[in-house]
């Protein structure tokens, strides 16, 4: 028992986010035991999946020392593009999904190249990309989404195999990929790049390539999130609104330092999960939607303040 407690303390010392998450889950267990029914737990994971995926994507960029503010508008753009291209034709489902991933790749590549080769701060690059994507997709569709998504497409975000939603399976895949990437040599060199780009370069790390890949990962993960969100809720222009800040909040909540080189992708994803559990809990507690942003603000300030104190002591 004492060794278990010791272990728990060790884990929570390394990842305080886990402590916060467990506490929230405990409170949720007291207030709403039904939450732990397998079905509703899976439904929760299904809803949380897009943000967790976005947080994982954002993590790559942040840990390499940059920002990606364009993911929210990219999600919107992807969903709207998908609806217009598929236009209700089932045979178009898979080709369009491939196009979505490809489009994410191109956007990430553009973000990465502008940031690294033109030396534009990523804050500005991705802010510009945000404006461009929103504007372009509205212009292209004449201001209102056209076409329709097919059932096959929507299935990925809506339906389940047995009781396990596709979204949860996709989340599991993406999380596995993210974990493997960060355990792989690429992940380690990415961390080194964010930590100290000069050392990384002098040790043979292709720094520009690593940063560009981080942007591509963020954008491709956003494309995957778009597939899930489009499937879950259907086409709308609101689908991606504000997701960039939610993703950054989640990553920071997970103890990942802005500026790079510090934090794990697991913690970033746990941060996203914590945020979703928090919102569920607020809903259960009957806290009005309006106060959610205030709670979000408090949590993020507190989490970062604690993190800042830890790294100094």
């Amino acid at each position, binding site marked *: 028992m004492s060794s278990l407690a010791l272990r728990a303390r060790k884990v929570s010392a390394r990842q305080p986010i886990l402590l916060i998450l467990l506490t929230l889950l405990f409170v949720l267990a007291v207030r709403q035991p039904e939450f732990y029914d397998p079905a509703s737990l899976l439904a929760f994971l299904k809803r949380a999946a897009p943000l967790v995926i976005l947080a994982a994507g954002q993590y790559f960029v942040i840990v390499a020392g940059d920002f990606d503010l364009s993911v929210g508008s990219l999600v919107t753009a992807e969903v709207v593009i998908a609806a217009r291209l598929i236009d209700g034709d089932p045979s178009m489902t898979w080709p369009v999904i491939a196009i979505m991933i490809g489009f994410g790749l191109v956007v990430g590549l553009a973000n990465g190249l502008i940031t690294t080769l033109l030396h534009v701060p990523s804050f500005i690059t991705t802010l510009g990309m945000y404006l461009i994507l929103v504007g372009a997709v509205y212009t292209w569709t004449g201001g209102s989404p056209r076409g329709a998504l097919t059932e096959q497409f929507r299935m990925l975000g809506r339906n389940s195999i047995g009781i396990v939603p596709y979204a949860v399976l996709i989340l599991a895949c993406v999380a596995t990929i993210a974990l493997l990437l960060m355990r792989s040599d690429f992940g*380690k060199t990415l961390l*080194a790049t964010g930590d*100290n780009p000069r050392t990384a370069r*002098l040790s043979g790390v292709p720094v520009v390539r690593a940063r560009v890949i981080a942007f591509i990962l963020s954008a491709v993960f956003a494309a995957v999130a778009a597939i899930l969100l489009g499937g879950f809720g259907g086409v709308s222009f609101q689908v991606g609104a504000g997701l960039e800040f939610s993703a950054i909040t989640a990553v920071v909540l997970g103890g990942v330092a802005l500026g790079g080189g510090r934090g794990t992708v697991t913690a970033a994803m746990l941060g996203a999960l914590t945020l979703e559990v928090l919102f569920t809990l607020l809903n259960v507690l009957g806290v009005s939607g309006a106060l959610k942003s205030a709670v979000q603000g408090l949590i993020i300030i507190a989490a970062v303040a604690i993190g800042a104190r830890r790294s100094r002591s």
Partner: protein
Amino acid sequence: MLQLRGVGKSFLGVQVLQDVDLELAAGEVHAVVGENGAGKSTLMKIASGVYHPDAGTVRWLGRDVSFRDPRQAQAAGIGIIHQEFNLLADRTVAQNVFLGREPLRRGLVDTAAMNERTASLLASIGEESLSPQAIVGRLGVAQQQVTEIVKALSLDARMLIMDEPTAALADHEVELLYGLVRRLKARGMGILYVSHRLKEVFDLTDRITVLKDGRRVTTVDTSSITADGLVRHMVGRELSHYYPPKSAEAGQERLTLQGAGNNRLHDISLALHAGQVLGICGLQGSGRSALARAIFGVDAFTRGNVHLDGASIRLSSPRQAIRAGIAYITEDRKAEGLTAQQSVLDNAMLATRALSPRWFATAGRTLKARELLAAVEVHAASEEQEVRYLSGGNQQKVILARWLALTPRVLLFDEPTRGIDVGAKAAIHDLIRKLASEGAAVLMISSDLPELLGMSDRLAVMRDGRIAGELPGTADEETVMRLATGASS
């Protein structure tokens, strides 16, 4: 004006300064010379209020003083010009000079007065040509130095400590500095002048204090001593340190440079042999590090030829150099050697991972990294410990392990033992020799002349971006110093 009596200082039980006396008179330029580790910088820091002496007294203008911090010393009239300038690149000379003490008129900064006062300070040292409104970032190094000096003057400094003031200056700029120092002296300013370059010392100073191993060897009038005599005072320390035996014979030529150069290096021709350590000595700013960086492709050569094991190569990035089998242990560990927040193991594996990235960690490579860490005797709480918490010596060993994993053919060591304790130093020396004996060609840069002499099979001496001469590993310190300082010419 300044009198140090019997000053002593120790860090962690190591006596760095012991019973040092120093006097500086108004209008005097007083050189402080000595080898690396002789205690010059500690002495300067005591004079400028950074450190408190453990023993002895500091008298300033006839009164015993004990400065809390450099700002208090500044206020009392002691200015210091560091090697690294404390200037804002985007601001004007006047704005930099008066930063933190801007003159006010009716509550607003009086720009006119600020410029005027800067101009008159500049005029007072004969630097009328420098505009107070020039942007510092666009000035040459010499003019930036002038700005620093004026900043000190604006604080009514009555004495100035100049730490290696010519290190970053080009030749013609050095001449300008000479004039400036002479004018300051004429105004009655006392100047403590720390320099390696004996030519300057003889050109400029009135008296010279020689430090060795934390003690004052002598203080002499400059006119009463020759360069040879001075060098003899500075060196001659007993080899308190054991160095591994040198290589008997040179192996094949590994890396050869023929007439190589770039904007800082000129006409470099050198050969590194397998099994040998080539020591590069030279003063700061002589191009030692630039040479290593050029070979490693950081600031690549733009002229000349480079051959590696007989094949002509052109390296334009570190990555290419590493692929070719070259490793570079940088001078500034913190800024260029470590990823401080990553673990010991991750730091040790960084180059391996960067060069041949794998999807899955293979046990073999990790095992190899562990073996290397053990072989170089890194002492860490665990391999997962963040490398920033390690001592300097252990950090350097981790970096060594990083490169050893690639079994490089050529190793470039830039100040490999700077800031490292004696025990770790010996271990690193042994390692360097072992690597050479296993067939690597080693280039070693060090400011610590005895170390370089103890380690090198051959020596190349650099001055002003050129090879001033090559010497056998058995050369004595005086010969090297003469060549490096230009005292012999």
